[in-house]
């Protein structure tokens, strides 16, 4: 399964872009509101057709304006989680999920209960949407979208209407779920950090045009893409497993090359997290530093050095399978004689990783 999209349009907002999402891949469309990302999603779903557009999914043409092909929305195999979930208010959670099932599903009732269990809502089947919290409604909406057995899953700012704690739990659940999903997932968001935590590929859009597209790690290390999003903070993700909660309020996590300590992380021992590390908070050292207040010192290998504009450079460090970015000055890089393939040490202050940077 894969999805390819291209469009050129003037109204309602100018759009001129193309992208492709592959099987099992999460592609994030990132941009400010009014950038055209929701219009793209609506075009894929069949709720809108721009003047010139083409949508192909799993070999089938859903939309080709040039030859007048426009498959109606209900004949496209799409699963959509709407921004405000758009659950049917007169149906229970179970009925909502059942309503999206293809007619080939034989025991719809038990299949719906299975889906609700998979999104961690086993006991809410008979509740109406009004009796569910925002996070629970989002889970029902996700179960309903997946119950359709879609060829592509479309998520329209699905985490914007819940509080931060719920949002992070939902992120973790989506990450856990996505390894079972074979269809491409298109996530629309204005939150770069969210895209970074969830997506394999990113398309950064501004006023209907692509600023940058490619693998998440690459896009996130492109200062131009960050500027377009109004972000000054370059960041990367470091995979770590919670190993202990210490008495002094710190949590010990194990990374590929050693332990780190962060302010108390609300996750059980054994949970694997992705820690968001801000590039300008990373200090590099050739030798392993001693007599330092910073506790987190991880061996790393220089993978790439990218010069940006101005006095800074971005050093890409390999730590296990992760790529961590460090923003240092050009002068420091020269003085340290950093070179590709060279081992070094990355120093990170515990307190520099704020709690909301820790995501499942």
């Amino acid at each position, binding site marked *: 399964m894969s999805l390819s999209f291209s469009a050129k349009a003037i109204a309602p907002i100018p759009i001129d872009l193309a992208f492709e999402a592959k099987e099992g891949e999460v592609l994030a469309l990132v941009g400010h509101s009014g950038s055209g990302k929701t219009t793209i999603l609506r075009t894929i*779903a069949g*709720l809108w057709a721009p003047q010139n557009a083409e949508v192909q999914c799993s070999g089938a043409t859903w939309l080709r304006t040039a030859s007048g092909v426009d498959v*109606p929305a209900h004949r496209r*195999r799409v699963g959509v989680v709407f921004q405000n979930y758009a659950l*049917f208010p007169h149906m229970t959670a179970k009925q909502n999920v059942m*309503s*999206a099932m293809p007619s080939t599903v034989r025991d719809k009732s038990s299949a719906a209960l299975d889906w609700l269990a998979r999104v961690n809502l086993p006991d809410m089947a008979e509740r109406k949407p009004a009796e569910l919290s925002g996070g629970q409604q989002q889970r029902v909406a996700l179960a309903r979208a997946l119950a359709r057995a879609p060829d592509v899953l479309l998520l329209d700012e699905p985490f914007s209407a819940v509080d931060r704690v719920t949002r992070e739990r939902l992120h973790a659940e989506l990450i856990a779920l996505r390894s079972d999903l074979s269809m491409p997932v298109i996530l629309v968001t204005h939150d770069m950090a969210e895209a970074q935590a969830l997506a394999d590929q990113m398309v950064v859009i501004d006023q209907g045009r692509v600023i940058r597209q490619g693998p998440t790690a690459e896009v996130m290390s492109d200062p131009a893409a960050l500027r377009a999003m109004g972000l000054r903070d370059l960041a990367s993700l470091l995979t770590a497993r919670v190993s202990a909660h210490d008495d002094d309020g710190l949590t010990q996590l194990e990374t590929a090359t050693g332990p780190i300590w962060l302010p108390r992380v609300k996750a059980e021992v054994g949970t694997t997290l992705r820690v968001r590390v801000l590039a300008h908070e990373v200090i590099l050292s050739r030798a392993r530093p001693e007599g330092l207040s910073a506790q987190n010192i991880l061996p790393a290998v220089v993978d790439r050095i990218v010069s940006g504009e101005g006095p800074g450079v971005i050093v890409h460090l390999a730590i296990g399978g992760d790529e961590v970015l460090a923003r240092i000055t050009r002068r420091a890089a020269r003085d340290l004689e950093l070179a590709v393939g060279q081992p070094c040490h990355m120093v990170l202050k515990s307190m520099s990783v704020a709690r909301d940077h820790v995501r499942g």
Partner: protein
Amino acid sequence: MDWTALLLSLRLAGWTVVLLLPVTVIMGRVLAYQSFRGKGLFETLVMLPLVLPPTVFGYYLLVVLGRGAPIGDFWQQTFGQPLVFSFEGLVLASVIFNLPFAIQPAQRGFEAVPQDIREAAACCGMSPWRSLLQVELPLAWPGLMTAMVLTFAHTLGEFGIVLMVGGSIPGETRTIAIAIYDRVQAFDYDGAAVMSAVLVGISLFTIGITYLLSARVGRRLS
């Protein structure tokens, strides 16, 4: 008490509701969700019975449904009897003059179904027909019910148009409202009082039922 007239009124109101329901659903939905050329003109035409004096409206119906007009002649040739001054003619007139009372609330009812809910129905694979039955109608139901109750109550009470199109033929076109008028003309105030009271009772009952049902629907949806 003219039971024949009361029964005739109830029959007329019942048939009007039954025939008007599909028209109301289709037109209310189209007006709520679609924009097309001449929509404003169409809405104005539908509203016309609200502002026209019943006698004026009845006069035009008499002309259109009577002999020498296409509809009247067609009816005469097909069924071998005139359309005006018959129960069938009365039903047709009743359906037409109730259009604004039915379509307005129905349109509001369909407009109350949020766009993203309707889009979600399509994205769940529901055909437009399934979406109408399983999502739109259950949610637009309060509006549709108001439409039907207003139609029913309004038909029971309509006087001018019924008199113009139907006359006052006992058992055929003499409704309760006309029977009351006839009683008063004959100085039978007691008879008129009883029938009026019955009509008030029926109207109160209908509206009471509506409030009860819509309160229940409201609870179900909120």
